[in-house]
């Protein structure tokens, strides 16, 4: 009896070690390919730039008070110039500052939404894919209901019931987003489940949780990572859309979508109020898309949706 335990645990240890070594090797090679791929590098640098700007925003912006409900009417509607690189808005706030703070909001949106929805979706997906049968059917049907509408429309519908704030918007988007990851992980789990090494684990007598964590999850990792990167861009896009329609970030907070919405009223004369936030958000979304695409090439992931 004891002998069996010892054998089992040593086998387990070996398997884990090999797994770890394989993982390190994969990372090493992937990093090498990453460095040589112009797409992923461009994307990564764009995203890093934005993160840097956003984190340092309170320190590097010339008029940090502009991020809030500050007013300076004499200075309103200034075109871009030396004092205000991006110009000022309708109540005199420096646009450059607001854009940088707006990045903070966008990034935070992505982080919050994804950190809620991804774990939830992945766990549900693993459960569904691995256990199959009725459990899977139920979970997948629920997923289908949430996916019946495009994310923006669903989020809009959900937001309809609440007071429009950024928090509400984040929860609304998160409540839809888990479905994509659930689906993705489910399909991967289903195919991995039939592989021999999983069956080997089952024969050894691993309990289900260990199998899920040790055997199946790593196989989903690349796909999920790629998806998260691409999602970040898309989530920010949806968030901007919601804000643009008035359901997301509310003034005086400097949400990029909100700024574009207000700025659009003053087209075409005061063009800078629309153009700079627009470009800013485009830059960020593009960065995430390039990065995600590059990661996909690099990790050699097969398109599992999206």
């Amino acid at each position: 009896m004891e002998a069996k335990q010892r054998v089992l645990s040593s086998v387990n240890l070996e398997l884990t070690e090999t797994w770890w070594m394989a993982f390190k090797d994969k990372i090493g090679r992937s990093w090498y390919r990453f460095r040589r791929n112009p797409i992923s590098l461009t994307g990564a640098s764009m995203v890093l730039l934005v993160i840097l700007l956003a984190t340092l925003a309170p320190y590097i912006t010339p008029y940090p008070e502009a991020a809030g409900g500050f007013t300076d009417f004499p200075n309103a509607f200034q075109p871009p110039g030396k004092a205000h690189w991006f110009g000022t808005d309708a109540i005199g706030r420096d646009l450059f500052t607001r854009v940088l703070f707006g990045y903070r909001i966008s990034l935070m949106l992505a982080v919050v939404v994804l950190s809620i929805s991804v774990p939830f979706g992945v766990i549900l997906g693993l459960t569904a894919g691995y256990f199959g049968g009725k459990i899977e059917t139920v979970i997948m049907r629920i997923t289908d209901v949430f996916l019946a509408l495009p994310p923006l429309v669903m989020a809009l519908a959900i937001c309809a019931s609440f007071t429009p704030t950024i928090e509400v918007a984040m929860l609304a988007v998160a409540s839809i987003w888990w479905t994509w990851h659930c689906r993705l992980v489910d399909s991967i789990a289903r195919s991995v489940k039939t592989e021999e090494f999983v069956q080997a684990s089952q024969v050894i007598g691993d309990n289900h949780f260990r199998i899920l964590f040790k055997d199946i999850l790593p196989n989903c990792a690349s796909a999920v990572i790629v998806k998260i990167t691409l999602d970040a861009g898309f989530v920010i896009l949806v968030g901007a859309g919601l804000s643009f329609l008035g359901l997301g970030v509310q003034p005086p907070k400097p949400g990029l979508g909100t700024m574009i919405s207000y700025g659009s009223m003053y087209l075409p004369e005061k063009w800078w109020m629309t153009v700079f936030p627009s470009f800013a958000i485009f830059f960020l979304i593009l960065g995430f898309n390039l990065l995600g695409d590059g990661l996909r090439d690099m990790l050699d992931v097969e398109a599992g949706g999206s």
Partner: protein
Amino acid sequence: MYSILVLVGLSILIFIIARMLPGNPARLALGPFASGEQVEHLSHKMGMDKPLPLQYWTYITGIFHGDFSLSFQTRRNVRLDIAHYLPATLELVIVAILWVLVIGVPLGVLSARYKDSWLDNVMRVIAFIGVAVPPFVVGLIGQFVFSYGLGIFPTTGRLGLLTPKPPSYTGLFLLDSLIAGEFSVFKDALQHIILPSFAVAMTGIGQITRITRGSMIDVLSKDYIEAAEAFGIPNRYTTFKYALKPSFIPPLTILGLTFASQLSNAFLVETVFAWPGMAKYGVRAILRKDFNAVMGVVLIVGLAFVVVNFIVDMLAGYVDPRIRLKEGEG
């Protein structure tokens, strides 16, 4: 088909969210100055005091009679509202999909054929941009450059202020004006639809280009293309006939998703261009918490998907005999 079930599930979901949440719709409808009595009266009339499942049941059976309940804003049956606004959105989305096919597919094909050339790289960049730019930004920039700047296209609306509406055969102004032979109206409607439809289409163009390119690259490396070339079939044919058809399945499946993004984009673009469509109606309903209207819009959108996905599945079987034949066997 179980997609009906999905629709039902969707309607339940939205219904629950709408009804169970804070805020009394009756009060919202009447405004802050209404008295408590009036609110109660309306609540009762709307059936708010009945148990939730019963409310749902009443609503659903009502739908089958064409009664989508009253919109709080317009005070008329939501069904009429939707019927009034739907054609505009349909027209917008249809033209957008045309853009996607006409621009996206050739771009993808050429990109694949001339892989890694400068042409390919330019097209890939365009595809990336298409997916990354928010549709309302495309709309705004479009307005900025073409309307305000160059004055080629009008800014808002479906027709100029002075142009009369064409007789309504389909509700699609472009078709109707052609049918009626009113070419000046057609021209006006066309001018008005170009910018907004393009804004809606941008995302789809990006998506279709990328997937067509990928699929085509895959097919071009296959043996049967080499064989066709060896038998002396010229390049133009091998690319556009022999390679295109097999590569069509992935783009086709994406077409369903593309439709989803088009409709989604419409919600943003209609606002920018003051396009009197169902999406704009929906947005307004949401902002004013007009729940019946919201339900109506949600159901119609859901239904649209079921229909489109069904059509896409049929088309896939038609284009690729492999699918058709396999289904025959199984």
